[in-house]
């Protein structure tokens, strides 16, 4: 009995944390979403959300940009992680890749404003080549570029771990059986590292759904996502109910993504 009691005690800090900072807020958000701006219990928020073109477009925008960011990071991260696996001082290189994540997000955003602005680094460089200054800041390109830059380490890490775990002898076996590099990749390497890719997609796609500082600083509010909308409702219009409703939609979207990318139970033997 005593032993059981002590082991239970180990769960107390985590349990408290979970209850206070995960479960309680989620319940509060769901609760809030059923009240209108005047404090009356209502379903109107949801009605507004699903009948208004603006919110649907915003949702679509969020998903679309999150999708683009995820695809760009994945396209860059997978080959990087793969090459990293075969490099000599991989731990050092990995450290260099992780390093930028230690710097505050806002600092990095401001740095990019400097780089992309009319008289920033890139335009100065283009000017030396005799090319007229171009608008980089506040474009879709700059938004996706910076967001991908920020997310890349979170994609590389799980994929790198997946590739490190891949037993080299599977690759050898595939080649031994006559498979060319590309066949080995599609039939053996990719399927065996897919779980790393899924974790990476989770780690990038879900936070990208609710990016909001970047949309303003780099995207110039041209890109309005659900994150921006939540911020507006809580801080500007003070319509907490509507903000919470969008929050609930985001949570549902996250659950769907988790479900789609999660480890599914291995299918049983076909009879």
């Amino acid at each position, binding site marked *: 009995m005593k032993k059981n009691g002590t082991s239970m005690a180990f769960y107390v800090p985590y349990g408290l944390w979970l209850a206070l900072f995960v479960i309680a807020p989620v319940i509060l958000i769901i609760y809030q979403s059923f009240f209108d701006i005047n404090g009356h219990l209502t379903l109107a928020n949801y009605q507004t959300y699903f009948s208004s073109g603006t919110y649907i477009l915003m949702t679509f925008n969020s998903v679309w940009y999150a999708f683009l960011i995820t695809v760009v990071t994945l396209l860059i991260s997978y080959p990087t992680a793969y090459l990293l696996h075969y490099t000599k001082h991989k731990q050092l290189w990995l450290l260099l890749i992780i390093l930028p994540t230690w710097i505050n997000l806002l600092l990095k955003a401001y740095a990019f404003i400097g780089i992309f602005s009319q008289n920033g680094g890139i335009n100065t460089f283009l000017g030396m080549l005799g090319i007229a200054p171009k608008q980089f800041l506040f474009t879709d390109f700059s938004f996706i570029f910076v967001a991908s830059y920020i997310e890349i380490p979170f994609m590389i890490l799980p994929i790198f771990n997946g590739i490190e775990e891949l037993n080299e002898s599977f690759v050898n*076996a595939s*080649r*031994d*059986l*006559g*498979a*060319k590099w590309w066949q*080995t990749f599609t039939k053996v390497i990719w399927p*065996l590292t897919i779980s790393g890719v899924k974790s990476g997609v989770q780690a990038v796609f879900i936070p990208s759904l609710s990016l909001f500082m970047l949309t303003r600083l780099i995207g110039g509010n041209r890109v309005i996502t659900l994150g921006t909308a939540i911020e507006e409702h809580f801080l500007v219009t003070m319509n907490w109910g509507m903000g919470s409703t969008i929050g609930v939609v985001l949570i549902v979207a996250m659950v769907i993504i988790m479900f789609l990318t999660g480890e599914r139970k291995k299918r049983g*033997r076909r009879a």
Partner: protein
Amino acid sequence: MSHTIIELQHVSKRYGDTVVLKDINIEIEQGKFYTLLGPSGSGKTTILRAIAGFLEVSEGDVLFDGQRINDVPANERKVNTVFQDYALFPHMNVFENVAYGLRIQKKPKKAVAQRVESALKMVRLEGYGDREISELSGGQQQRVAIARAIVLEPAVLLLDEPLSALDAKLRKDMQYELRELQQRLGITFLFVTHDQEEALALSDEIFVMNDGEVQQSGTPVDIYDEPINHFVADFIGESNIVAGHMIADYQVEFNGKTFECADAGMRPNEPVEVVLRPEDLDITSTDAGKVQVKVDTQLFRGDYYEIVAYDRLNNEWLIHSTNPAVDGDTVGLTFDAEDIHVMRLNESEEDFDARLESYEGE
């Protein structure tokens, strides 16, 4: 008649300062069953990897059909491997694993199914096609690995301890199956094992390896009857090895007496080692025996008794006898002149062959 299909010429492999293969020269003829036999860490797997194309040799050439293939990638080499660690694809079921190579070759669906079925049948795994790899025992996995390689019917099959996880009976069955398959399809086998009985039973030719060197190569009978040095004599079969001197041709001295033997071509009074196989020793009375020993212990081995005895110089003698002895008794041992095999110290395989030629040719 049969031509050389694989050849290693002066192949060496180093990892940093450690030398793993030292000047290996091996010739493999088409359609024969070869075995690499040696203790753990002697470089057997390394040789297979050099042939399959998974490592770059530090020096020397690997030839296939007379062509240098050092730079040919593994997927283009006409050899298949049964890996020591099986390397079965964990995300595919048994059928998909075995079908992998055929799929790569874009064989028609029907032919794939048929050939996979018959390969699975050969390794006694009919009806296991739908199983996941994780649902198989170690021995079953090993047999899937065999099936996956043989289904392609390659010119050369490299088998890295392919039967190590099987029980004695299944192992025997699979030995017969492999030998039969090898002969029926005329596939060249390069088989790795550290089980000397398996090597002796299956092979046309054996390479005995130690410390990255081929110590001796030859037919099982040659290697068993005429081991070139202490290591080979000790590793292949059981043996009594005693120090002695070569008095003259066909006369060797050990245990304080001179015996007739069948070996010659050495310097007079040269120090040598004498090998006597336990099954060649017969127990008689003390007076009739050529060597007198005192029985220490004995073990019943099923078809014979293994008796350990000591002579007066305290050399250990191992005797295989159909009849038990009495512990503590002093008995005599007899043997024929042909049972004695004399080994020179540090003789190379070439010198050994040349010497044999010189007096056996007469």
